[in-house]
Protein backbone atom coordinates (compact mmCIF):
# COMPACT_ATOMS: atom_id res chain seq x y z
CA UNK A 1 0.00 0.00 0.00
CA UNK A 2 1.28 3.46 -0.95
CA UNK A 3 1.85 5.87 1.91
CA UNK A 4 0.03 9.17 1.48
CA UNK A 5 1.23 10.67 4.72
CA UNK A 6 4.22 9.70 6.76
CA UNK A 7 5.15 11.33 10.03
CA UNK A 8 8.67 10.65 11.26
CA UNK A 9 9.75 11.33 14.82
CA UNK A 10 7.61 14.47 15.16
CA UNK A 11 8.18 16.64 18.21
CA UNK A 12 6.05 19.64 19.08
CA UNK A 13 6.40 22.03 21.99
CA UNK A 14 4.28 24.82 23.42
CA UNK A 15 6.01 27.62 25.26
CA UNK A 16 4.08 28.64 28.36
CA UNK A 17 4.87 30.77 31.37
CA UNK A 18 5.75 27.63 33.30
CA UNK A 19 8.11 26.41 30.58
CA UNK A 20 7.97 24.32 27.43
CA UNK A 21 5.14 21.79 27.31
CA UNK A 22 6.28 18.86 25.21
CA UNK A 23 2.93 17.91 23.74
CA UNK A 24 4.20 15.62 20.99
CA UNK A 25 7.34 13.63 21.82
CA UNK A 26 8.58 11.73 18.81
CA UNK A 27 5.54 10.43 16.98
CA UNK A 28 6.00 8.29 13.88
CA UNK A 29 3.02 6.98 11.93
CA UNK A 30 2.02 6.30 8.34
CA UNK A 31 -1.26 6.67 6.54
CA UNK A 32 -1.96 4.56 3.48
CA UNK A 33 -4.13 5.23 0.46
CA UNK A 34 -7.85 5.17 1.29
CA UNK A 35 -6.98 4.01 4.77
CA UNK A 36 -8.88 5.10 7.86
CA UNK A 37 -6.52 5.54 10.79
CA UNK A 38 -7.82 6.08 14.27
CA UNK A 39 -5.73 7.93 16.84
CA UNK A 40 -6.99 7.25 20.33
CA UNK A 41 -5.89 8.81 23.56
CA UNK A 42 -7.16 10.78 26.50
CA UNK A 43 -7.18 14.58 26.73
CA UNK A 44 -3.65 15.94 26.64
CA UNK A 45 -2.13 12.84 25.07
CA UNK A 46 -0.99 14.94 22.10
CA UNK A 47 -3.27 13.32 19.53
CA UNK A 48 -4.85 16.55 18.31
CA UNK A 49 -1.60 18.52 18.47
CA UNK A 50 0.11 15.91 16.29
CA UNK A 51 -2.44 16.57 13.60
CA UNK A 52 -2.51 20.34 14.12
CA UNK A 53 1.26 20.16 13.54
CA UNK A 54 0.67 18.36 10.26
CA UNK A 55 -1.86 20.96 9.12
CA UNK A 56 0.33 23.84 10.31
CA UNK A 57 -2.49 25.09 12.52
CA UNK A 58 -0.67 25.17 15.85
CA UNK A 59 -1.48 28.16 18.04
CA UNK A 60 1.11 30.95 18.12
CA UNK A 61 3.06 29.51 21.05
CA UNK A 62 3.32 26.04 19.46
CA UNK A 63 6.39 24.97 17.48
CA UNK A 64 7.58 21.81 15.76
CA UNK A 65 11.08 21.22 17.09
CA UNK A 66 12.08 18.20 15.06
CA UNK A 67 10.85 15.51 12.72
CA UNK A 68 9.56 15.16 9.20
CA UNK A 69 6.05 15.24 7.79
CA UNK A 70 5.96 13.64 4.35
CA UNK A 71 2.91 14.23 2.18
CA UNK A 72 3.38 12.13 -0.97
CA UNK A 73 7.08 12.16 -0.20
CA UNK A 74 7.35 15.95 0.14
CA UNK A 75 8.46 17.17 3.56
CA UNK A 76 5.90 19.75 4.65
CA UNK A 77 7.19 20.34 8.16
CA UNK A 78 8.09 24.01 8.73
CA UNK A 79 11.64 22.82 9.47
CA UNK A 80 11.99 21.86 5.80
CA UNK A 81 11.34 25.41 4.58
CA UNK A 82 13.82 28.28 4.46
CA UNK A 83 11.40 30.79 5.96
CA UNK A 84 8.00 30.98 7.60
CA UNK A 85 6.74 32.89 4.57
CA UNK A 86 7.74 30.08 2.22
CA UNK A 87 6.11 27.56 4.53
CA UNK A 88 2.84 29.48 4.73
CA UNK A 89 2.82 29.95 0.97
CA UNK A 90 3.11 26.21 0.42
CA UNK A 91 0.62 25.35 3.16
CA UNK A 92 -2.00 27.73 1.75
CA UNK A 93 -1.95 25.60 -1.41
CA UNK A 94 -2.20 22.35 0.55
CA UNK A 95 -4.71 23.23 3.25
CA UNK A 96 -8.24 22.57 2.15
CA UNK A 97 -7.00 21.17 -1.15
CA UNK A 98 -4.73 18.19 -0.36
CA UNK A 99 -5.43 18.00 3.34
CA UNK A 100 -8.55 19.13 5.10
CA UNK A 101 -9.66 19.08 8.69
CA UNK A 102 -12.96 18.45 10.44
CA UNK A 103 -13.10 20.10 13.83
CA UNK A 104 -14.42 19.25 17.21
CA UNK A 105 -17.00 21.84 18.11
CA UNK A 106 -19.42 22.84 15.35
CA UNK A 107 -20.80 25.61 17.56
CA UNK A 108 -17.56 27.60 17.58
CA UNK A 109 -15.78 26.68 14.35
CA UNK A 110 -18.18 28.41 11.95
CA UNK A 111 -17.90 32.16 11.52
CA UNK A 112 -21.06 33.63 13.07
CA UNK A 113 -21.28 36.68 10.80
CA UNK A 114 -20.73 35.03 7.42
CA UNK A 115 -23.40 33.19 5.45
CA UNK A 116 -23.05 29.45 4.92
CA UNK A 117 -22.58 29.83 1.16
CA UNK A 118 -19.71 32.27 1.69
CA UNK A 119 -17.99 29.86 4.06
CA UNK A 120 -18.67 26.74 2.05
CA UNK A 121 -17.61 28.23 -1.27
CA UNK A 122 -14.37 29.52 0.21
CA UNK A 123 -12.23 26.38 -0.18
CA UNK A 124 -13.59 25.85 -3.71
CA UNK A 125 -12.77 29.42 -4.74
CA UNK A 126 -9.37 29.19 -3.02
CA UNK A 127 -8.24 26.12 -4.91
CA UNK A 128 -10.03 25.96 -8.25
CA UNK A 129 -10.61 28.36 -11.13
CA UNK A 130 -14.36 27.92 -10.94
CA UNK A 131 -16.58 30.97 -11.21
CA UNK A 132 -18.74 31.97 -8.27
CA UNK A 133 -21.80 30.43 -9.89
CA UNK A 134 -20.09 27.11 -10.53
CA UNK A 135 -18.70 27.13 -7.00
CA UNK A 136 -22.20 27.74 -5.68
CA UNK A 137 -23.52 24.75 -7.62
CA UNK A 138 -20.74 22.60 -6.25
CA UNK A 139 -21.43 23.84 -2.72
CA UNK A 140 -25.11 22.91 -3.07
CA UNK A 141 -24.03 19.48 -4.26
CA UNK A 142 -21.78 19.14 -1.20
CA UNK A 143 -24.60 20.05 1.15
CA UNK A 144 -26.78 17.43 -0.48
CA UNK A 145 -23.97 14.90 -0.10
CA UNK A 146 -23.72 15.46 3.65
CA UNK A 147 -27.48 15.23 4.04
CA UNK A 148 -28.65 18.80 4.55
CA UNK A 149 -32.23 19.17 3.31
CA UNK A 150 -33.21 21.99 0.90
CA UNK A 151 -29.62 23.20 0.44
CA UNK A 152 -30.52 26.03 -1.96
CA UNK A 153 -32.39 28.01 0.67
CA UNK A 154 -30.23 26.95 3.62
CA UNK A 155 -27.12 28.20 1.82
CA UNK A 156 -28.31 31.74 2.41
CA UNK A 157 -28.63 31.29 6.16
CA UNK A 158 -26.21 32.00 8.97
CA UNK A 159 -24.64 29.42 11.31
CA UNK A 160 -26.89 30.30 14.26
CA UNK A 161 -29.89 29.15 12.22
CA UNK A 162 -28.52 25.58 12.15
CA UNK A 163 -28.51 22.87 14.81
CA UNK A 164 -25.25 21.40 16.09
CA UNK A 165 -25.53 18.27 13.95
CA UNK A 166 -26.27 20.31 10.84
CA UNK A 167 -23.35 22.59 11.53
CA UNK A 168 -21.05 19.60 11.84
CA UNK A 169 -22.35 18.39 8.47
CA UNK A 170 -21.45 21.78 7.01
CA UNK A 171 -17.93 21.52 8.44
CA UNK A 172 -17.65 18.04 6.93
CA UNK A 173 -18.87 19.41 3.59
CA UNK A 174 -16.15 22.07 3.71
CA UNK A 175 -13.51 19.41 4.28
CA UNK A 176 -14.80 17.39 1.33
CA UNK A 177 -14.97 20.40 -0.99
CA UNK A 178 -11.75 19.85 -2.94
CA UNK A 179 -11.53 16.06 -2.66
CA UNK A 180 -8.48 16.17 -0.41
CA UNK A 181 -6.12 13.20 -0.17
CA UNK A 182 -6.13 13.37 3.59
CA UNK A 183 -9.02 14.31 5.85
CA UNK A 184 -8.21 14.76 9.50
CA UNK A 185 -11.24 14.53 11.75
CA UNK A 186 -10.48 15.92 15.20
CA UNK A 187 -13.04 14.37 17.56
CA UNK A 188 -15.88 15.14 15.15
CA UNK A 189 -18.58 13.77 17.42
CA UNK A 190 -17.38 14.81 20.87
CA UNK A 191 -19.44 17.99 21.09
CA UNK A 192 -22.66 16.45 19.76
CA UNK A 193 -25.66 14.78 21.40
CA UNK A 194 -25.52 11.01 21.46
CA UNK A 195 -28.21 10.52 18.79
CA UNK A 196 -26.58 13.12 16.55
CA UNK A 197 -23.19 11.47 17.19
CA UNK A 198 -24.51 8.28 15.68
CA UNK A 199 -25.85 10.12 12.64
CA UNK A 200 -22.59 11.95 12.02
CA UNK A 201 -20.61 8.73 12.43
CA UNK A 202 -22.91 7.01 9.95
CA UNK A 203 -22.35 9.87 7.55
CA UNK A 204 -18.57 9.60 7.88
CA UNK A 205 -18.55 5.83 7.41
CA UNK A 206 -20.81 6.14 4.35
CA UNK A 207 -18.64 8.88 2.89
CA UNK A 208 -15.58 6.75 3.47
CA UNK A 209 -16.78 4.43 0.69
CA UNK A 210 -17.75 7.26 -1.65
CA UNK A 211 -14.63 9.37 -1.54
CA UNK A 212 -11.02 8.60 -2.31
CA UNK A 213 -9.54 10.31 0.70
CA UNK A 214 -7.55 8.72 3.47
CA UNK A 215 -8.99 9.62 6.85
CA UNK A 216 -7.38 10.18 10.22
CA UNK A 217 -9.92 9.98 13.01
CA UNK A 218 -8.83 11.51 16.31
CA UNK A 219 -10.95 10.41 19.24
CA UNK A 220 -10.96 9.36 22.85
CA UNK A 221 -13.81 6.96 22.21
CA UNK A 222 -12.80 3.42 21.28
CA UNK A 223 -16.38 2.74 20.20
CA UNK A 224 -16.02 5.37 17.46
CA UNK A 225 -12.84 3.86 16.03
CA UNK A 226 -14.19 0.32 16.23
CA UNK A 227 -16.94 1.11 13.75
CA UNK A 228 -14.90 3.05 11.21
CA UNK A 229 -11.14 2.55 11.39
CA UNK A 230 -8.89 0.10 9.58
CA UNK A 231 -5.93 0.77 11.80
CA UNK A 232 -5.61 2.25 15.27
CA UNK A 233 -2.80 4.09 17.05
CA UNK A 234 -2.99 4.50 20.81
CA UNK A 235 -1.33 7.66 22.14
CA UNK A 236 -0.26 8.40 25.68
CA UNK A 237 1.89 11.19 27.11
CA UNK A 238 2.83 12.58 23.70
CA UNK A 239 3.90 9.19 22.31
CA UNK A 240 2.32 6.39 20.33
CA UNK A 241 2.37 3.38 22.64
CA UNK A 242 0.68 0.84 20.38
CA UNK A 243 -0.33 0.58 16.72
CA UNK A 244 -2.28 -2.19 15.06
CA UNK A 245 -5.25 -3.12 12.93
CA UNK A 246 -8.62 -2.93 14.64
CA UNK A 247 -8.38 -6.69 15.22
CA UNK A 248 -4.92 -6.41 16.76
CA UNK A 249 -6.06 -3.73 19.16
CA UNK A 250 -9.44 -5.13 20.16
CA UNK A 251 -8.61 -8.84 20.34
CA UNK A 252 -4.91 -8.86 21.12
CA UNK A 253 -3.97 -5.65 22.96
CA UNK A 254 -0.36 -5.64 24.15
CA UNK A 255 0.23 -2.40 26.03
CA UNK A 256 -1.15 -2.19 29.58
CA UNK A 257 -2.66 1.20 28.71
CA UNK A 258 -4.54 -0.26 25.73
CA UNK A 259 -5.75 -3.10 27.93
CA UNK A 260 -6.83 -0.55 30.52
CA UNK A 261 -8.68 1.50 27.90
CA UNK A 262 -10.52 -1.56 26.65
CA UNK A 263 -11.69 -2.48 30.13
CA UNK A 264 -13.23 1.02 30.33
CA UNK A 265 -15.45 0.24 27.35
CA UNK A 266 -18.75 -1.47 27.88
CA UNK A 267 -18.89 -4.70 25.93
CA UNK A 268 -22.47 -5.84 25.30
CA UNK A 269 -21.32 -9.46 24.88
CA UNK A 270 -20.04 -9.70 28.44
CA UNK A 271 -22.96 -8.36 30.37
CA UNK A 272 -21.85 -8.77 33.95
CA UNK A 273 -18.38 -7.28 33.52
CA UNK A 274 -17.79 -4.18 35.57
CA UNK A 275 -16.10 -1.20 33.92
CA UNK A 276 -12.66 -0.65 35.34
CA UNK A 277 -11.26 2.89 35.38
CA UNK A 278 -7.51 3.43 35.12
CA UNK A 279 -6.41 5.03 38.41
CA UNK A 280 -4.11 8.07 38.44
CA UNK A 281 -3.63 10.90 35.95
CA UNK A 282 -1.47 11.41 32.86
CA UNK A 283 2.12 12.68 33.20
CA UNK A 284 3.05 16.33 33.37
CA UNK A 285 4.40 17.20 29.95
CA UNK A 286 6.21 20.26 31.29
CA UNK A 287 8.63 17.79 32.78
CA UNK A 288 7.94 14.49 31.04
CA UNK A 289 9.21 11.27 32.61
CA UNK A 290 12.36 9.92 31.03
CA UNK A 291 11.00 6.40 31.00
CA UNK A 292 7.63 5.08 29.92
CA UNK A 293 4.97 7.82 30.35
CA UNK A 294 2.46 5.28 31.68
CA UNK A 295 4.68 3.96 34.46
CA UNK A 296 2.92 5.67 37.37
CA UNK A 297 -0.43 4.16 36.47
CA UNK A 298 0.76 0.76 35.29
CA UNK A 299 0.00 -2.26 37.46
CA UNK A 300 2.86 -4.20 35.93
CA UNK A 301 5.50 -1.47 36.14
CA UNK A 302 9.08 -2.61 36.61
CA UNK A 303 12.21 -0.79 37.71
CA UNK A 304 13.41 -0.15 34.17
CA UNK A 305 10.08 1.38 33.12
CA UNK A 306 10.84 4.47 35.19
CA UNK A 307 14.34 4.89 33.86
CA UNK A 308 14.29 4.24 30.17
CA UNK A 309 11.81 4.60 27.34
CA UNK A 310 10.97 1.14 26.03
CA UNK A 311 11.94 0.27 22.46
CA UNK A 312 9.39 -0.86 19.90
CA UNK A 313 8.43 -4.53 19.93
CA UNK A 314 7.10 -5.80 16.61
CA UNK A 315 4.48 -8.54 16.74
CA UNK A 316 3.42 -8.65 13.11
CA UNK A 317 3.80 -6.34 10.14
CA UNK A 318 0.78 -4.41 11.38
CA UNK A 319 1.10 -4.66 15.15
CA UNK A 320 3.70 -2.78 17.20
CA UNK A 321 3.93 -1.74 20.83
CA UNK A 322 6.36 0.16 23.04
CA UNK A 323 6.45 -1.61 26.39
CA UNK A 324 9.18 -3.24 28.45
CA UNK A 325 6.88 -6.19 29.18
CA UNK A 326 7.34 -7.32 25.60
CA UNK A 327 11.11 -6.89 25.61
CA UNK A 328 12.87 -10.16 24.96
CA UNK A 329 14.48 -10.07 28.42
CA UNK A 330 11.11 -9.74 30.16
CA UNK A 331 9.64 -12.49 28.01
CA UNK A 332 12.40 -14.86 29.14
CA UNK A 333 11.09 -14.39 32.66
CA UNK A 334 14.00 -12.37 33.99
CA UNK A 335 13.58 -8.87 35.37
CA UNK A 336 14.74 -6.35 32.83
CA UNK A 337 17.58 -4.29 34.32
Amino acid sequence: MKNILEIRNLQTEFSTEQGAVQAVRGVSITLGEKEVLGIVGESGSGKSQTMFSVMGLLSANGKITSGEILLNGEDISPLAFTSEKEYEKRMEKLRGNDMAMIFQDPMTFLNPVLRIDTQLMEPILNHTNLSKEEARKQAIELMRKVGIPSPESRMKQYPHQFSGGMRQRIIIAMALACNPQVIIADEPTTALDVTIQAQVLDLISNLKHEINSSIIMITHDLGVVASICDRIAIMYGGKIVEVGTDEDIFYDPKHPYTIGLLSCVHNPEEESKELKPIPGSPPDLLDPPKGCPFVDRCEKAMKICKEQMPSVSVFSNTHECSCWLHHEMALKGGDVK
Partner: protein
Amino acid sequence: MVKYIGKRLLLGIFTLFILATITFFMSKAMPGSPFAGDTQRMSQDQLDALNEKYGLDRPIGEQYVTYMSNAIHGDFGESLTRRGTPVNEIIATSMPVTVKLGLTAVVIALVVGIGLGTAAALSKHKWVNNVVMFISTIGVSLPSFLFALLLLLFVGVYLRLLPTVGLDTPLHYIMPAFSLALYPISMISRLTRSSLIEVMKQDYMVLAKSKGSSSKTIIFKHALKNAMLPVITYAGPMIAFMMTGSFIVESLFSIPGIGREFVSSISTRDYSMIMAVTIFLGALMIVLNILSDIVNAFIDPRIKLGD
Protein backbone atom coordinates in the same frame (compact mmCIF):
# COMPACT_ATOMS: atom_id res chain seq x y z
CA MET B 1 -38.39 45.47 10.55
CA VAL B 2 -40.80 48.21 9.36
CA LYS B 3 -42.94 47.56 12.40
CA TYR B 4 -39.88 47.82 14.63
CA ILE B 5 -38.79 51.13 13.10
CA GLY B 6 -42.34 52.49 13.39
CA LYS B 7 -42.45 51.51 17.04
CA ARG B 8 -39.09 53.12 17.72
CA LEU B 9 -40.16 56.33 15.93
CA LEU B 10 -43.39 56.56 17.95
CA LEU B 11 -41.42 56.05 21.13
CA GLY B 12 -39.02 58.72 19.90
CA ILE B 13 -41.83 61.23 19.44
CA PHE B 14 -42.98 60.55 22.97
CA THR B 15 -39.41 61.04 24.21
CA LEU B 16 -39.20 64.33 22.33
CA PHE B 17 -42.44 65.50 23.94
CA ILE B 18 -41.06 64.81 27.41
CA LEU B 19 -37.77 66.45 26.51
CA ALA B 20 -39.54 69.56 25.20
CA THR B 21 -41.73 69.84 28.28
CA ILE B 22 -38.86 69.55 30.73
CA THR B 23 -36.69 71.97 28.75
CA PHE B 24 -39.54 74.48 28.50
CA PHE B 25 -40.10 74.71 32.22
CA MET B 26 -36.43 74.55 33.12
CA SER B 27 -35.49 77.38 30.76
CA LYS B 28 -38.28 79.53 32.15
CA ALA B 29 -37.11 78.77 35.65
CA MET B 30 -33.76 80.39 34.92
CA PRO B 31 -33.55 83.93 36.26
CA GLY B 32 -33.08 86.72 33.72
CA SER B 33 -34.74 87.75 30.51
CA PRO B 34 -33.85 87.65 26.80
CA PHE B 35 -34.09 91.40 26.78
CA ALA B 36 -31.80 91.96 29.76
CA GLY B 37 -29.03 93.26 27.52
CA ASP B 38 -31.36 95.90 26.14
CA THR B 39 -32.70 97.33 29.41
CA GLN B 40 -30.38 100.32 29.30
CA ARG B 41 -31.53 101.33 25.87
CA MET B 42 -35.22 100.58 26.30
CA SER B 43 -37.91 102.11 28.41
CA GLN B 44 -40.15 100.00 30.60
CA ASP B 45 -42.99 100.52 28.10
CA GLN B 46 -40.91 99.16 25.28
CA LEU B 47 -39.89 96.11 27.34
CA ASP B 48 -43.52 95.46 28.24
CA ALA B 49 -44.42 95.72 24.59
CA LEU B 50 -41.74 93.16 23.69
CA ASN B 51 -42.85 90.80 26.46
CA GLU B 52 -46.41 91.12 25.24
CA LYS B 53 -45.42 90.58 21.62
CA TYR B 54 -43.65 87.32 22.42
CA GLY B 55 -46.28 86.28 24.95
CA LEU B 56 -43.86 86.32 27.87
CA ASP B 57 -46.37 88.24 30.06
CA ARG B 58 -48.90 85.39 30.03
CA PRO B 59 -49.16 82.70 32.71
CA ILE B 60 -46.54 79.98 32.15
CA GLY B 61 -49.15 77.26 31.56
CA GLU B 62 -50.70 79.23 28.74
CA GLN B 63 -47.25 79.94 27.25
CA TYR B 64 -46.55 76.20 27.28
CA VAL B 65 -49.78 75.29 25.50
CA THR B 66 -49.29 77.99 22.87
CA TYR B 67 -45.69 76.97 22.29
CA MET B 68 -46.43 73.27 21.95
CA SER B 69 -49.34 73.75 19.56
CA ASN B 70 -47.20 76.01 17.36
CA ALA B 71 -44.29 73.59 17.52
CA ILE B 72 -46.46 70.68 16.40
CA HIS B 73 -47.25 72.73 13.30
CA GLY B 74 -43.57 73.29 12.69
CA ASP B 75 -43.53 76.89 13.91
CA PHE B 76 -40.76 77.32 16.46
CA GLY B 77 -41.06 81.07 16.59
CA GLU B 78 -38.50 83.83 16.20
CA SER B 79 -35.22 84.23 17.95
CA LEU B 80 -35.69 86.55 20.91
CA THR B 81 -32.24 88.07 20.62
CA ARG B 82 -32.05 88.31 16.85
CA ARG B 83 -35.57 89.53 16.56
CA GLY B 84 -37.24 88.98 13.22
CA THR B 85 -35.20 85.89 12.31
CA PRO B 86 -37.12 82.61 12.64
CA VAL B 87 -35.16 80.02 14.64
CA ASN B 88 -35.72 77.49 11.87
CA GLU B 89 -33.60 79.70 9.67
CA ILE B 90 -30.81 79.95 12.21
CA ILE B 91 -30.74 76.17 12.59
CA ALA B 92 -30.83 75.71 8.83
CA THR B 93 -27.73 77.86 8.40
CA SER B 94 -25.71 76.60 11.37
CA MET B 95 -26.58 72.90 11.20
CA PRO B 96 -24.90 72.11 7.84
CA VAL B 97 -21.68 73.64 9.15
CA THR B 98 -21.73 71.37 12.19
CA VAL B 99 -22.69 68.31 10.14
CA LYS B 100 -19.89 68.84 7.66
CA LEU B 101 -17.35 69.22 10.43
CA GLY B 102 -18.87 66.31 12.40
CA LEU B 103 -18.86 63.95 9.42
CA THR B 104 -15.24 64.81 8.68
CA ALA B 105 -14.38 64.04 12.29
CA VAL B 106 -16.38 60.77 12.20
CA VAL B 107 -14.57 59.60 9.07
CA ILE B 108 -11.20 60.50 10.61
CA ALA B 109 -12.12 58.76 13.88
CA LEU B 110 -13.21 55.55 12.15
CA VAL B 111 -10.38 55.34 9.63
CA VAL B 112 -7.58 56.31 12.00
CA GLY B 113 -9.07 54.46 15.00
CA ILE B 114 -9.70 51.17 13.20
CA GLY B 115 -6.37 51.44 11.37
CA LEU B 116 -4.37 52.04 14.54
CA GLY B 117 -6.26 49.34 16.46
CA THR B 118 -5.73 46.76 13.72
CA ALA B 119 -2.04 47.61 13.49
CA ALA B 120 -1.65 47.31 17.26
CA ALA B 121 -3.43 43.96 17.38
CA LEU B 122 -1.70 42.30 14.44
CA SER B 123 1.77 43.79 14.19
CA LYS B 124 4.58 41.42 14.97
CA HIS B 125 6.60 44.35 16.30
CA LYS B 126 5.87 45.15 19.87
CA TRP B 127 6.68 48.84 19.50
CA VAL B 128 3.70 49.37 17.15
CA ASN B 129 1.39 48.19 19.89
CA ASN B 130 3.16 50.34 22.47
CA VAL B 131 2.97 53.47 20.31
CA VAL B 132 -0.76 52.97 19.62
CA MET B 133 -1.52 52.36 23.27
CA PHE B 134 0.47 55.48 24.20
CA ILE B 135 -1.43 57.62 21.68
CA SER B 136 -4.77 56.28 22.82
CA THR B 137 -4.00 56.83 26.48
CA ILE B 138 -3.08 60.45 25.75
CA GLY B 139 -6.19 60.81 23.59
CA VAL B 140 -8.51 59.60 26.31
CA SER B 141 -7.00 61.73 29.04
CA LEU B 142 -6.38 64.98 27.17
CA PRO B 143 -9.47 67.26 27.15
CA SER B 144 -10.43 68.38 23.65
CA PHE B 145 -10.16 72.09 24.46
CA LEU B 146 -6.58 71.63 25.59
CA PHE B 147 -5.72 69.58 22.55
CA ALA B 148 -7.41 72.15 20.30
CA LEU B 149 -5.49 74.98 21.98
CA LEU B 150 -2.19 73.14 21.63
CA LEU B 151 -2.93 72.50 17.96
CA LEU B 152 -3.84 76.13 17.42
CA LEU B 153 -0.73 77.31 19.17
CA PHE B 154 1.84 75.01 17.57
CA VAL B 155 0.42 74.13 14.16
CA GLY B 156 -1.55 77.33 13.60
CA VAL B 157 0.47 80.10 15.24
CA TYR B 158 4.10 78.95 15.57
CA LEU B 159 4.44 76.78 12.49
CA ARG B 160 1.73 78.56 10.46
CA LEU B 161 0.96 75.30 8.66
CA LEU B 162 -2.83 75.47 8.84
CA PRO B 163 -5.45 78.24 8.97
CA THR B 164 -6.94 78.80 12.41
CA VAL B 165 -10.31 80.49 11.84
CA GLY B 166 -13.47 79.36 10.05
CA LEU B 167 -14.14 76.55 7.61
CA ASP B 168 -13.47 78.10 4.20
CA THR B 169 -11.16 75.51 2.61
CA PRO B 170 -10.59 71.79 3.20
CA LEU B 171 -7.41 72.73 5.06
CA HIS B 172 -9.56 74.61 7.58
CA TYR B 173 -11.22 71.36 8.57
CA ILE B 174 -8.08 69.54 9.66
CA MET B 175 -7.47 71.02 13.10
CA PRO B 176 -11.09 71.24 14.36
CA ALA B 177 -11.90 67.78 12.98
CA PHE B 178 -8.89 66.24 14.69
CA SER B 179 -9.75 68.03 17.93
CA LEU B 180 -13.22 66.49 17.77
CA ALA B 181 -11.92 63.08 16.68
CA LEU B 182 -9.10 62.67 19.20
CA TYR B 183 -11.20 61.03 21.91
CA PRO B 184 -13.15 58.72 19.55
CA ILE B 185 -9.89 57.76 17.79
CA SER B 186 -8.50 56.61 21.11
CA MET B 187 -11.62 54.72 22.11
CA ILE B 188 -12.03 53.08 18.70
CA SER B 189 -8.40 52.05 18.44
CA ARG B 190 -8.56 50.46 21.89
CA LEU B 191 -11.83 48.69 21.13
CA THR B 192 -10.61 47.47 17.76
CA ARG B 193 -7.36 46.24 19.23
CA SER B 194 -8.85 44.28 22.11
CA SER B 195 -11.71 42.85 20.09
CA LEU B 196 -9.45 41.85 17.19
CA ILE B 197 -7.03 40.11 19.56
CA GLU B 198 -10.00 38.23 20.99
CA VAL B 199 -11.37 37.31 17.54
CA MET B 200 -8.00 36.05 16.30
CA LYS B 201 -8.12 33.44 19.06
CA GLN B 202 -11.52 32.11 18.02
CA ASP B 203 -11.98 28.63 16.63
CA TYR B 204 -13.49 29.86 13.38
CA MET B 205 -10.21 31.55 12.53
CA VAL B 206 -8.51 28.14 12.65
CA LEU B 207 -11.18 26.70 10.34
CA ALA B 208 -10.73 29.62 7.93
CA LYS B 209 -7.00 28.94 7.84
CA SER B 210 -7.58 25.21 7.35
CA LYS B 211 -9.43 25.98 4.13
CA GLY B 212 -6.28 27.42 2.62
CA SER B 213 -7.29 31.07 2.82
CA SER B 214 -4.47 33.60 2.81
CA SER B 215 -3.79 35.56 5.95
CA LYS B 216 -5.12 38.67 4.20
CA THR B 217 -8.47 36.99 3.53
CA ILE B 218 -8.56 35.64 7.04
CA ILE B 219 -8.07 39.08 8.56
CA PHE B 220 -10.29 41.12 6.27
CA LYS B 221 -13.06 38.62 5.59
CA HIS B 222 -13.25 36.59 8.77
CA ALA B 223 -11.75 38.65 11.57
CA LEU B 224 -12.53 42.33 11.01
CA LYS B 225 -16.27 41.90 10.54
CA ASN B 226 -16.48 40.12 13.87
CA ALA B 227 -14.10 42.55 15.53
CA MET B 228 -16.18 45.51 14.35
CA LEU B 229 -19.28 44.55 16.36
CA PRO B 230 -18.29 46.32 19.61
CA VAL B 231 -16.84 49.22 17.60
CA ILE B 232 -20.18 49.78 15.85
CA THR B 233 -22.03 49.68 19.14
CA TYR B 234 -19.74 52.43 20.35
CA ALA B 235 -19.72 54.37 17.07
CA GLY B 236 -23.51 54.88 16.89
CA PRO B 237 -23.85 57.23 19.87
CA MET B 238 -20.40 58.64 19.10
CA ILE B 239 -21.54 59.76 15.63
CA ALA B 240 -24.72 61.24 17.11
CA PHE B 241 -22.58 63.12 19.62
CA MET B 242 -20.30 64.55 16.94
CA MET B 243 -23.25 65.60 14.77
CA THR B 244 -24.71 67.72 17.54
CA GLY B 245 -21.69 69.96 17.60
CA SER B 246 -19.13 70.92 20.15
CA PHE B 247 -19.38 74.32 21.76
CA ILE B 248 -15.70 74.27 22.69
CA VAL B 249 -14.27 73.33 19.31
CA GLU B 250 -16.69 75.59 17.43
CA SER B 251 -15.87 78.53 19.68
CA LEU B 252 -12.09 78.02 19.60
CA PHE B 253 -11.98 77.84 15.81
CA SER B 254 -14.74 80.48 15.29
CA ILE B 255 -16.98 78.08 13.44
CA PRO B 256 -20.62 79.22 13.13
CA GLY B 257 -22.08 75.82 14.02
CA ILE B 258 -25.06 74.74 16.05
CA GLY B 259 -23.07 73.89 19.17
CA ARG B 260 -22.04 77.51 19.53
CA GLU B 261 -25.57 78.77 18.83
CA PHE B 262 -26.93 76.42 21.44
CA VAL B 263 -24.69 77.53 24.27
CA SER B 264 -25.01 81.21 23.46
CA SER B 265 -28.82 80.89 23.34
CA ILE B 266 -28.76 79.60 26.89
CA SER B 267 -26.65 82.45 28.19
CA THR B 268 -28.85 85.06 26.49
CA ARG B 269 -32.11 83.35 27.63
CA ASP B 270 -33.24 83.07 24.02
CA TYR B 271 -36.10 80.74 24.94
CA SER B 272 -37.26 79.92 21.45
CA MET B 273 -33.70 79.09 20.34
CA ILE B 274 -33.14 76.88 23.40
CA MET B 275 -36.34 74.98 22.70
CA ALA B 276 -35.85 74.58 18.98
CA VAL B 277 -32.24 73.46 19.19
CA THR B 278 -33.03 71.00 22.01
CA ILE B 279 -35.90 69.44 20.10
CA PHE B 280 -33.91 69.34 16.90
CA LEU B 281 -30.80 67.75 18.44
CA GLY B 282 -33.00 65.36 20.42
CA ALA B 283 -34.71 64.23 17.24
CA LEU B 284 -31.35 63.81 15.53
CA MET B 285 -30.06 61.69 18.43
CA ILE B 286 -33.13 59.46 18.27
CA VAL B 287 -32.89 58.94 14.52
CA LEU B 288 -29.15 58.23 14.65
CA ASN B 289 -29.65 55.72 17.46
CA ILE B 290 -32.30 53.86 15.47
CA LEU B 291 -29.97 53.91 12.47
CA SER B 292 -27.10 52.48 14.49
CA ASP B 293 -29.32 49.65 15.73
CA ILE B 294 -30.26 48.84 12.14
CA VAL B 295 -26.61 48.85 11.06
CA ASN B 296 -25.80 46.59 14.02
CA ALA B 297 -28.45 44.09 13.01
CA PHE B 298 -27.20 44.26 9.44
CA ILE B 299 -23.63 43.35 10.45
CA ASP B 300 -24.45 40.78 13.13
CA PRO B 301 -27.07 38.36 11.79
CA ARG B 302 -27.69 37.01 15.30
CA ILE B 303 -29.32 40.29 16.34
CA LYS B 304 -33.03 40.31 15.58
CA LEU B 305 -34.62 43.75 15.50
CA GLY B 306 -37.78 43.89 17.56
CA ASP B 307 -36.86 41.38 20.24
